[in-house]
């Protein structure tokens, strides 16, 4: 079943690749259909998922590289637990949304959707992989589509940004690979479950070093100060759909990696460096929020706010307790939907006004009430308004961390106040004010795909906000074993 | 090392000196043909080593059954040196035709 999820987009890629040139526009339909099918698969998995059972479900496996006698046995294993399942649903949802908001793309349409689908497969592969090398493979695989999507269909300094994204990720993951190899050395396998079962104790380099090698890559992806400067550039110059995917799921790969790999396999080191992580997290939250206040470009606002918001993920992780980890997992999901939608909204505005400079925009609410309303709601979600999903996640994170890292938590809670500041200020500047002559020709969101994308994301945001158990009941099952390894509850 | 007792070491030292001189010539001279001379000297030095080992050398291990292998090696080195010299000459002539020089410090169209 999960392999189907990985293969569906690739099937779409093949179909699009053989599409005749004059039917280029059909590429988007094909892409949409396969993405919807994949999303449906993820929903089926979500529905069929046994919330009470331990361990991975829907596992597919075969031995991929048969050389385990020389320490290079690599398996193809996919499976989900409560941690990865929401990420898969998120990937499915955001891919659909990303494809929907890309319906207006006319430049090299076929290639565009091919890369978008490849991106979906690679990201989903990261979430589904249960073997370190396979994980790494998908991790690297995602670079190519991202690089091309940003540098072909982006704007501004797109080539600089794409390259920066690429080099940051490769640079970060380079040492991660070393860490993986060192972890797999003694065990002779790279299977995560086996390594979790019996974490390596004697390694060639001190485990502390390996810890930083591996988590370094995840901190880049997350991103956390001071490894974050690729993010604003990449977001700013990426096309809307890519920003959606980047903020929505790619950043989550970092948090997911820490939860899936770093914590279970190196619990002692995690405990040892929990304080450092918490400090980084708390600082990132405030730092990101403060810089967000200063941004003049809408996308940079959202991008820097991501730095701030992903700090919560790391904060939740750093407490190393069940509640905090739950919060981190929740925050990953909710940030994915919220920021994804924010980028969609910014994209819709940009499609119409052809500028993202806040100073140029004003009074848009008069011309585009629907976009404005959705933007406000999403903004509320982003600033942690209860009833929308962001609040649940933040609350859970803070509940998990207050006792362990009080200072970092207080800093992070203050980040919420700053969040209200930058979001409302932006909303005020962009939407409010007297009707602006310059934008009198703009239209509201009027295409069905725009409506569908917004609606789908809003449903996810409100649903989780009002009834978080739909998510937490699944997540906590995935978190429990990790928390148990780390030494019980919070 | 007794200076009067001529041993393997003596020959090796001479070989080393000639090899070093060959290197010095090969690296110092502008003219490609002079460089070639240096290289030939280096090969000669190696030949001396082979012959000296053949003459004096035993082995760490079972004794060699064919001590004259060193000589055989030298024969091949001579052959190869001749072949290389021929090709080098041709190459030098070719370069000279195109560039009117065989000075290596002027043959640097391609660099960096």
């Amino acid at each position, binding site marked *: 079943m999960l392999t189907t999820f990985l293969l569906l987009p690739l099937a779409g890629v093949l179909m699009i690749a053989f599409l005749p040139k004059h039917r280029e526009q059909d590429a988007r339909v094909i892409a949409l259909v396969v993405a919807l099918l994949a999303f449906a698969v993820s929903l089926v998995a979500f529905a069929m998922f046994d919330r009470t059972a331990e361990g991975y479900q829907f596992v597919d496996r075969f031995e991929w590289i048969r050389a385990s006698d020389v320490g290079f046995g690599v398996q193809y294993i996919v499976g989900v637990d409560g941690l990865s399942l929401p990420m898969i649903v998120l990937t499915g949802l955001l891919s659909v949304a990303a494809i929907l908001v890309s319906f207006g793309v006319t430049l090299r349409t076929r290639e565009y959707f091919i890369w978008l689908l490849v991106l979906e497969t690679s990201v989903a592969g990261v979430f589904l992989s249960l073997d370190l090398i396979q994980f790494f493979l998908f991790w690297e695989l995602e670079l190519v589509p991202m690089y091309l999507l940003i540098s072909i269909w982006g704007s501004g300094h797109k080539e600089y940004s794409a390259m920066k994204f690429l080099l940051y990720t490769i640079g970060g993951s380079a040492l991660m690979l070393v860490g993986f190899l060192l972890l797999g050395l003694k065990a002779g396998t790279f299977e995560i479950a086996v390594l979790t079962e019996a974490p390596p104790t004697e390694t060639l380099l001190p485990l502390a070093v390996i810890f930083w090698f591996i988590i370094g890559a995840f901190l880049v992806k997350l991103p956390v100060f001071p490894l974050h400067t*690729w993010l604003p550039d990449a977001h700013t110059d990426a096309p809307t759909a890519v920003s959606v995917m980047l903020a929505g799921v790619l950043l989550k790969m970092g948090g997911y990696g820490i939860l899936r790999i770093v914590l279970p396999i190196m619990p002692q080191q995690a405990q040892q460096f929990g304080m450092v992580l918490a400090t980084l997290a708390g600082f990132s939250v405030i730092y990101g929020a403060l*810089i967000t206040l*200063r941004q003049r470009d809408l996308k940079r606002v959202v991008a820097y706010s991501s730095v701030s918001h992903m700090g919560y993920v790391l904060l939740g992780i750093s407490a190393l307790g069940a509640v905090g980890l739950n919060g981190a997992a929740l925050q990953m999901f909710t940030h994915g939907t919220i920021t994804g939608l924010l980028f969609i909204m910014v994209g819709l505005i940009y499609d119409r006004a052809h500028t993202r400079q806040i100073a140029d925009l004003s009074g848009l609410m008069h011309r585009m009430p629907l976009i404005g309303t959705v933007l406000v709601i999403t903004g509320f979600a982003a600033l942690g308004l209860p009833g929308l999903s962001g609040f649940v996640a933040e609350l859970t994170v803070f509940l998990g961390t207050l006792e362990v890292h009080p200072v970092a938590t207080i800093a992070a*809670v203050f980040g919420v*106040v700053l969040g209200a500041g930058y979001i409302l200020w932006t909303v005020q500047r962009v939407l409010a004010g007297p009707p602006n002559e310059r934008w009198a020709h703009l239209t509201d969101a009027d295409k069905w795909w725009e409506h569908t994308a917004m609606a789908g994301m809003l449903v996810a945001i409100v649903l989780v906000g009002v009834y978080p158990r739909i998510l937490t009941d699944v997540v906590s099952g995935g978190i429990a074993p990790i928390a148990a390894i780390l030494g019980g509850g*919070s | 090392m007794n200076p009067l007792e001529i041993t393997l070491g003596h020959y090796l030292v001479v070989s080393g000196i000639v090899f070093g001189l060959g290197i010095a010539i090969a690296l110092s001279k502008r003219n490609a043909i002079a460089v070639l001379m240096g290289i030939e000297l280096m090969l000669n030095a190696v030949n001396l080593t082979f012959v000296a080992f053949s003459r004096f050398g035993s082995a760490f291990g079972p004794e060699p059954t064919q001590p004259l292998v060193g000589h055989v090696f030298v024969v091949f080195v001579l052959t190869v040196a001749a072949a290389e010299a021929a090709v080098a000459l041709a190459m030098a002539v070719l370069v000279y035709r195109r560039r009117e020089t065989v000075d290596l410090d002027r*043959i640097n*169209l391609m*660099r960096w």
Partner: protein
Amino acid sequence: MPTIPEAAVWAIYFVPLVTGALCATAFRRTPLLAGRAMITAMFVAWLLALWTLQTVIGHHGEAIGFDPITWVHLGDIPIQFGARVDGLTAVMLVVVTSVGLLVQVYSTEYMRGDGGYYRYFAYMGLFCSSMLGLVLASSLLQLFIFWELVGASSYLLIGFWFHRPSAAAAAKKAFIVTRFGDFGFFLGVLLVWVSAGTYDMATLNEHATELSAAALTGISLGLFSGAVGKSAQFPLHIWLPDAMEGPTPVSALIHAATMVAAGVYLIARMFPLFQAAPENVHMFIATIGGITALLAASIGVVSTDIKRVLAYSTVSQLGYMVMALGLGGYVAAIFHLFTHAFFKALLFLGSGSVNHASGTFDMRKMGGLRSHMPITFWTFVIGSLSLSGVFPLAGFWSKDEILATAYEANPIFFGITVLVAFLTAFYMFRAIFLTFFGTYQGGEASEHGHSSHPHESPMSMAGPLLILAVPAIAVGWVNLDGSFGHFIEAALPEAVRQGHHEPVALVMAISTVAALSGIAVATAIYFAKMPASASIRSKLGPLPGIIERKYFMDDLAEDILVRKVLYGGIAQACELFDRYVVDGIVNGIGWAARMKGEVLRRTIVGQQQAYSSLLLAGVLVAVVVLFALSGAGLER
């Protein structure tokens, strides 16, 4: 009537919510229907609230609990939400639904013709349901959630006329300033979980004394911080006057009767926990309340905008309540909250009616409206008298309880209360004289467009004024025998109940004197013009100027703290650091790699001998290194 079922209680919450949602969607094209739907919804809610009240009275104010539902699991521990109905809740429900209902009726006329008519009622629905949810909450977290939602709907309503930059800015200011308070509230909420492990407020109150002093201090200061923000206490009061940019019915409902009272309600709800906290906390709360009351009243004296006068008056009265709570006057505070809701709503609606007539809130442009709009005038006077605490109107009784509490507690606080009572009466009658007496100064185009010459408002606006005038007069009498007090004290655990205070005659006398003298001074200055206000002003030196600048509080907060320190200072420093240091290092690494590459590239100089040299030197170096390593014994 039978005991109210749980579903009906929840319906109080859901009916306005669903109606609001319908207004936003189904009634977009038929805005008039939206207004009527909202009125109906509020009427239903009001009836249900009365039913609830009746049921609770049947239980003598004791709580009716319902089974909670699990909202989310934290690890293994469930966080549960539910409804809890007791005396306090019932009273609040009635206040909110009654004022809410009247405000909806009033709004249908007041907002007539506005382009965002349906939007207005959608927001109203959201607000009312959130406020009712806040009141119904049985869990502190649930309360916090609705607290935030109330804030959000307040934001939407203040910024309703988003095309006016001042409205948009005021909305943002309101939200962010209250968020500062909520920062503390949120921490308090987190601390509750960490130290008590439950959010059920009844349980928390029951076992408050079992918590450590540090935890209690932290929690109560945190919760109080939330109250400071929401109830516009010093120093976070600065948002409320600006919030008057919203439509006037909104001000009446949210910024007078309901939302701003939520802070007081929160403290009252968690009163046992506050009581368990150390004494210093109480003093702190009372002091903040006292400062707020005095500060706001003094600004009210110099304000020229009728709505701002009322706004400062609200701040001042809320300060009263908070002070009372700090001094242990649970009943006094709630009683005042109860009465205040009616007469302040009345006053706000009255000011809206005035605006409807004159098109302005600037009192200097009004005058002489008494003859044009008698209903408005008389109801306004009733409200003012009630607010000033004139016997036997509602305000008199509730204010008297607060004065009595202060009298018993501390002479300084008592002095403050008396002074504030004087100032209150003074500024209210100053407003009356400026607005309704003298000659009409011309007005302005109204806040939603149609220019006007003064006239009485239509019945849908005047009606609510008349209706509200009744409770403004009479509602104080419910506690003559202390039954109201008993009723709401039933919400508290036995240990914290205080029982009924006998009215203190001396306090009543002083209060009445203060009020009457305030009225008298106002009459002298603004009606009789015996000393003209200008001459008094000149005698007071710089003081009026300072007060008119609101003690520089807004300047300090907005210009210095936010604009200069935060935005221009810290945030800019971070931004520059990010751009030039963090990103600079990144780009520097890239540059260094390129440069190093360039240098390495230049080693391929093009001359063949360089290549041989490199090769041979490489051999030499490698041999020497390996000899050295070998000699150093690294081989094993």
